[in-house]
């Protein structure tokens, strides 16, 4: 059952299913739209059981039509519902950006508050052997869209808590998970809890350098910190958890203490999460040594050798930390 008191060990995918189940049970307006989310239970079983419990009217398999899927969710949201739209991989979210960015993100503003679109677009980022068009991390695009909230949990507890909060938020939320997180397990509170939107978390305290990252990369940061610790280098890991709004205060406070910041993301560095975090931290704490780590500037191949070569790993993070520590 549980290793710690008051918690239960759940797989990341189970934590998502639990959050959606609780919200669907408590609020009729919550519905799920997506490809193979019904009896199949989702590509990563993250919706398992919802169809049996809530039925075909509230858990809807859709055609392969991402533009309409997002549009339907946004439209139903603007009409008073709270749909969760599952876009299997973030690469395919491009097909639905018009409804998400041109409509949902602007609905509240352009109607002077008459309309809000509380839709949650859940999508899976990251590379795991599926190639150039099934591996991208586009969080940075969404961070720059006023009106969108973007959350990116790194463990089961946050997958649960942030999904709960996302489904209660009164505007569009993009919930970004990762292929490599679904099979990971973690302790989740037995009691109903809500993850704080806009609040980063310090996953590991440290003195010499701050590593600011999110999602699956938090695990890579932990590996790097472990190895650096053996050499007496102590890293503080800040899990951003929410990318929009960004909790600069927590990262800045940490960087101010350590004096060194390494940003880590799986996606592209150019105009990426790290560039933004670095800028905002420097604005608020002035002189701090900074380095950023991300994917190589190339498409991500499904080839095992090339994928591994392109993605950030502990070794690269360690190099970056040593660089900023000069």
């Amino acid at each position: 059952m549980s290793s710690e008191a008051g918690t239960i060990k759940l797989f990341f995918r189970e934590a998502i299913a639990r959050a959606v189940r609780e919200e669907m049970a408590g609020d009729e307006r919550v519905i799920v739209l997506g490809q193979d989310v019904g009896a199949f239970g989702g590509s990563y079983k993250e919706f398992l059981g919802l169809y049996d419990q809530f039925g075909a009217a509230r858990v809807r398999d859709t055609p392969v039509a991402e533009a309409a899927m997002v549009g339907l969710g946004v439209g139903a949201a603007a009409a008073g519902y709270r749909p969760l739209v599952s876009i299997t991989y973030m690469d395919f979210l491009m097909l639905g950006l018009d409804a998400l960015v041109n409509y949902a993100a602007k609905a509240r503003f352009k109607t002077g508050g008459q309309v809000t679109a509380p839709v949650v677009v859940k999508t899976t980022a990251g590379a795991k052997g599926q190639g150039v068009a099934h591996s991208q991390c586009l969080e940075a695009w969404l961070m720059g869209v006023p009106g969108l909230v973007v959350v990116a949990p790194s463990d089961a507890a946050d997958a649960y808590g942030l999904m709960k909060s996302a489904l209660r938020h009164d505007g569009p939320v993009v919930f970004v998970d990762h292929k490599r997180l679904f099979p990971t397990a973690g302790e989740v509170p037995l009691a109903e809890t809500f993850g704080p939107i806009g609040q980063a978390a310090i996953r590991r305290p440290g003195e010499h350098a701050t590593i600011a990252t999110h999602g699956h990369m938090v695990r890579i940061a932990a590996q790097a910190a472990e190895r650096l610790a053996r050499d007496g280098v102590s890293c503080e890991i800040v899990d951003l958890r929410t990318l929009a709004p960004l909790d600069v205060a927590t990262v800045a406070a940490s960087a101010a203490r350590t004096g060194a910041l390494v940003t880590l993301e799986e996606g592209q560095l150019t105009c990426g999460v790290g560039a933004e975090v670095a800028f905002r931290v420097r604005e608020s704490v002035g002189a701090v040594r900074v380095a950023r780590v991300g994917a190589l500037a190339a498409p991500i191949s499904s080839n095992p050798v090339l994928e591994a070569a392109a993605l950030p790993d502990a070794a690269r993070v360690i190099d970056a930390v040593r660089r900023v520590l000069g």
Partner: protein
Amino acid sequence: MDPLATLKSMLLIRRFEAALDARPDRGFQLYSSGAEAVAVGVCAALRPGDQLLSSGRSIGPALARGIDPRLVMAELLGKATGPAGGKGGRGHLAKPDQGFFGAHAVVAGNLNIAAGAALAAQLDGRGRMVACIFGDGAAGAGALHETLNIAALWTLPLLLVCDNNGLSVSTPREAALAPARLSDLAAPFGVPAASLDGTDVEAVRDQAAEFAAQARAGGGPAFLECRSERFFSHSTATRETRSAAAMRGVLERCPIRRCAAKLQAAGQLDAAGLAGLEAEAEARVADALAFADASPYPDPAEALSDVV
């Protein structure tokens, strides 16, 4: 909706746009003149709880849906007293609490939004339905295909109204769309469709009413093609591409004159009566302008409100 009411509604749209167009401060606008019968006919088939969505060409739809001309004028002139406080403006008019879910300036961008609103109406289970007016140009977009397919699969209470004025900016419909009739696009999905003269307000109203009744009864979506005209150039910023001769033919097909003539032939209206209705429309437009003129622009600080 009685015949005189539809005529009144069309006259209001025509006069409203003429007055707005005469304003040096009107900015970028898209007009509905020539297609009044489409919006008015469709709205005659809608009930208070229903929702209407439209393309960026939304003055006709908004007024036909019964939104106070004062509010529409204020919004279009960027005044704080508009329903969106002047933030939406041209192409994004909205008053959902009165059944106008809103315009969207992205061509075909409102189709799947409308399907989502129809899904909400279906889940509500109160016999409400949704109508979405889009142009012929939007019929070339994949959004129509995805929306027709899902609306048919889920029998959504959705009336798709194609306001086919035969043009997308400068591009003739024949050069942009292969189908012989745009309403044919509904057939593969088993969605009932009709194609009719969009300058005949009664024909539009009757067909829309039939489709609306089907939708409310759980019969699912329908597709209504209305062949209308565009009396102005595409927008106030776009040069006219049609010849003077062609324009004469276009202006011939006036939905208002057609409606008025029919009422006069039927003895339901005489010259004096028509003059009276025109004067009434003029007065409402003058009042709307006065209201907008008396209204302030939004405070610049509003640029940052209603964002998240």
